[in-house]
């Protein structure tokens, strides 16, 4: 681990010294020994602040849209999930791939529950890979959608009760939105007041409508990084909403995993004449 950390610092220092990039986004230490935080490294000296350890759980890709980024080419440390998030953002045309330098870091899983069902521990896209690739783990579709399948088996009343309990906790902090690499609109519908998409009050109905809308906005493009659920301060199982959509897409239109390339067509932006309409 420490070898890779020093290699990471070296790489960052080199990139900044040579002027290849103006900023390196990586993880840095915090006051807590078991937490790291995303940092924007803008000088070669600061490269020493970069860390690589089991606590580097935070997704970094979304930070390239942060206004703390200076102008110019950015370098981002990418694990498997981050690399898919980068693809997500590039495919959504929010950033150009050529303006990014990706430092690939194979990852054997961090302190996050989502890592147990991670299917891409090696970055799917990178400019330089630090350390050798790590073995991928096999995750069956059953395991991937286990939470969804469990809920699907309930009656509508039970499902509703379950979600009401969950959404009653929601405080509309929008952390799930802010962390999600697929939530990359410049102005979220939830922040718009004139159209009246939905109310701002915190009640279970508004919360659930927000939750559903968010899921529908990102579900078909979800890269399953689990950031939404990780950052939720109230511990809502948000990801089981987007995974429900992914599961349905897999059922309906074949194997589907997002963010593996930067050019996969958007599944709701295309159609097939022979698509099913047995819900009719």
């Amino acid at each position, binding site marked *: 681990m420490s070898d890779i950390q020093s290699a990471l610092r070296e790489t960052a220092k080199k990139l900044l010294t040579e002027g290849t990039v103006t900023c390196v986004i990586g993880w840095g230490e915090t006051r807590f020994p078991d937490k790291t935080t995303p940092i924007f490294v803008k000088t070669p000296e600061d490269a020493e602040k970069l860390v690589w350890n089991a606590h580097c759980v935070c997704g970094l890709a979304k930070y390239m849209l942060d206004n703390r980024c200076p102008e110019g080419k950015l370098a981002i440390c990418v694990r498997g999930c981050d690399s898919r998030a980068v693809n997500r953002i590039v495919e959504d045309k929010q950033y150009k791939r050529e303006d990014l330098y990706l430092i690939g870091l194979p990852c054997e899983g961090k302190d996050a529950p989502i890592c147990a069902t991670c299917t891409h521990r090696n970055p799917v896209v990178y400019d330089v890979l630090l350390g050798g690739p790590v073995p991928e783990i096999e995750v069956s579709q059953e395991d991937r959608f286990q939470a*969804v399948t469990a*809920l*699907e088996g309930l009656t*509508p*009343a*039970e*499902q*509703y*009760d*379950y*979600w*009401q309990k969950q959404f009653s906790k929601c405080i509309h902090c929008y952390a799930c939105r802010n962390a999600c690499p697929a939530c990359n609109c410049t102005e979220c*519908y939830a922040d718009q007041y004139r159209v009246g*998409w*939905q109310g701002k009050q915190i*009640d*279970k*109905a*508004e919360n*659930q*409508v927000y939750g*559903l*809308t968010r*899921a*529908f906005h990102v*579900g*078909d493009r979800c890269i399953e990084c689990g950031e939404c659920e990780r950052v939720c301060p109230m511990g809502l199982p948000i990801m089981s*909403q987007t995974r*429900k*959509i992914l599961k*349905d*897409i897999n059922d*309906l239109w074949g194997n589907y995993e997002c963010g593996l390339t930067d050019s996969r067509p958007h*599944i*709701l932006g295309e*159609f*097939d*004449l022979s*698509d*099913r*309409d047995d*819900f*009719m």
Partner: protein
Amino acid sequence: MSVKADPNWEPKILAFCCNWCTYTGADLAGLNRMKYPANVRVVRLPCSSRVNPQFILRAFQKGCDGVMVCGCHPGDCHYATGNYFTRRRFMLMKRLLEYNGIDPQRFQARWISGSEAAKFRDTVTRVAGEIKALGPNTRFQEKWYEEGGEAQ
């Protein structure tokens, strides 16, 4: 479900209909003086693909007991391909709604052409019956708040 024991309760059903097929079909039902229950209110839209899934959530939230999305049959869309997108969007949306506890009958999508007045009549009659049997929708609604407690 704590349905208020109102024997005269009638469900309110919102139907988003495309102008070229289903709305025309509904008009034709009128021209033919076909009879169906007065539960359906139609919102006229150019194409079923105009229906943003958020409209459905909004309708439930504001107190609709059922929502329908109706458009041209695949291949007949006035705009060539609109309803193919409708089909994909609502295939996912319907499953997501059901996952969140909305009874399957409460959200339905149908292809009804401009000539299928009888199909329009039969569809809304059946949907109205199904939803009447289910009782008023309280899910996604703010009413629990007004009534000062849990609706269910």
